[in-house]
């Protein structure tokens, strides 16, 4: 079974590499670092790579305090029967399809961002990041909670017996012990966020440009999946444009792969 899945991944990877070759030959490093993507002329993917990193990174920053706080509260403070309720609810939320979040994002979040920050338009990197944050919150929270909950009771008992307060026990005994598992949860959540297509596509603005200044999250942008989603149908059968999209896919594949590997690495260490 492990062999079959490994073979599939390797074949997928080889296919992507093979399809990307012609654009890499044509653009060389300009593919990764070029700022200009104009189908038929030049393919610089940096704005999309930037958009993906920016949106996922920002989503993480926004959601981390909430997800970890929620996980600690659920695992350490909440009575056991409520805990199961919360867990069930989180797992339910984690399974909601991206398009549902996307629709809510277009209908509510875009306008909210626009009005709250006094912008001229609500389709921004920040909107996409907020939406992604909401989407991965349940995943990160429930996995991090698992990690906290799996810390054996004896650590808590020992810490208590030293006369520590509850919050000191959590902070100095439980969390350090659960840290690898929490890190794993975060990376897996990030992986999901980075690959999300439709929800992001609906609110990010679709502009292949790095904003000026680069940290201006109130500007529109473009992520890799959203670019692929918008341009794929047009590019089928073309040489270079299709190859460029495949290379974009390859870039995304590698980025998500690294995140997933790191996630699994930490989760394994936690066990």
């Amino acid at each position: 079974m492990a062999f079959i899945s490994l073979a599939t991944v390797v074949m997928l990877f080889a296919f992507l590499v093979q399809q990307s070759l012609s654009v890499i030959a044509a653009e060389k490093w300009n593919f990764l670092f070029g700022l200009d993507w104009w189908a038929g002329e030049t393919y610089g993917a940096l704005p999309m790579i930037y958009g993906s990193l920016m949106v996922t990174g920002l989503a993480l920053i926004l959601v981390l305090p909430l997800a970890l706080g929620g996980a600690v509260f659920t695992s350490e403070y909440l009575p056991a029967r409520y805990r199961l309720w919360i867990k069930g609810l989180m797992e339910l939320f984690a399974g909601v399809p991206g398009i549902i979040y996307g629709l809510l994002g277009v209908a509510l979040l875009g306008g909210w961002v626009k009005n709250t920050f006094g912008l001229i338009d609500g389709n921004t990197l920040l909107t996409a990041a907020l939406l992604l944050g909401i989407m991965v919150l349940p995943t990160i929270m429930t996995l991090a909670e698992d990690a906290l909950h799996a810390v054996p009771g004896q650590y808590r008992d020992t810490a208590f017996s030293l006369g520590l307060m509850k919050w000191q026990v959590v902070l100095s005994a439980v969390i350090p012990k659960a840290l690898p598992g929490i890190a794993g949860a975060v990376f897996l959540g990030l992986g999901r966020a980075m690959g999300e297509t439709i929800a992001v596509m609906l609110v990010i603005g679709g502009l292949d440009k790095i904003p000026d200044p680069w940290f201006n999250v109130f500007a529109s942008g473009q992520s890799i999946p959203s670019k692929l989603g918008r341009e794929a149908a047009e590019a089928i059968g073309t040489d270079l444009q299709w190859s460029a999209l495949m290379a974009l896919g390859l870039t995304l594949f590698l980025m998500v792969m690294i995140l997933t590997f790191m996630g699994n690495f930490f989760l394994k260490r936690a066990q």
Partner: protein
Amino acid sequence: MKQVFFRILISVVFFILFSAVSLSPGFAEDRREKIQVVGSTTVLPLVTRAAEVFAEEKKDAVAITVNSGGSGVGIHSSATGRADIGMASREISNKERERFKNSDLKTIVVGRDAVACVVSSEVYAAGVKALSRKQIRDIYLGKIKNWKDVGGPDREIVVIDKERHRGTRHVFMQYVFGDENARAPGARLVTGSNNEEQSKIAQSDAAIGMLSLAWINEDVVGIAILEGDEAIEPTLENVRANRFPISRNLNFVVAGEPEGIVREFVDFIISPKGQKMVKASGYVPVHPL
């Protein structure tokens, strides 16, 4: 080992059961003739409407699927055989002719439409009723950034561009820049279908964009184009009289001479009955009603 064998056995049994069900006659087999239509979201509403009536007339012996994707996708699909008919709200470009020179592409004009320069209703109400070609160009170049520079409110302009392969964009850019592939560095947002662009403009109170006539409504207002001293309104009358400067043909694109049921459908669209639907969809008929 035994367990693995058991699992394989179960999957094989399920596989056989499923294929038996899906291959059995009457379950998956569809005896209806099929027509695949793909492409421009401008042409789409008219074709959807016609397809319904056509299928009804044929006593449902024909199944027509109509999908969007944009003119580029439409031309591409019909040239590569992914669709029987491609819908395009522009002409086939030279590049496409070159690329698909083996597929014998033909266009059949089914109606006429205009691309209007549209603005959010708030901007229109505040006094921007017409723009010249130069003003529109400067807005899309990012040289004019505020509505007050063109007689509107003191509000930054949300410049909305379209995905590059969209027919509406080709026609609009051809007029504004004299180049169907012109870049628009002033763009703030890029949208895809007419519906997407329409809703983004309606949500904003400071947007400018490009839309087919049929998508204009009270939230998304088509402004007049200033040519010299004359302000030409985007109305069906002006399109019919060839006065409005940004107009275009709505095309069916087929690879080779259409035959059989596809031919019948094409003939239906250019028949008086079909042309009445062109009119009902908000476009200008090109064949006698």
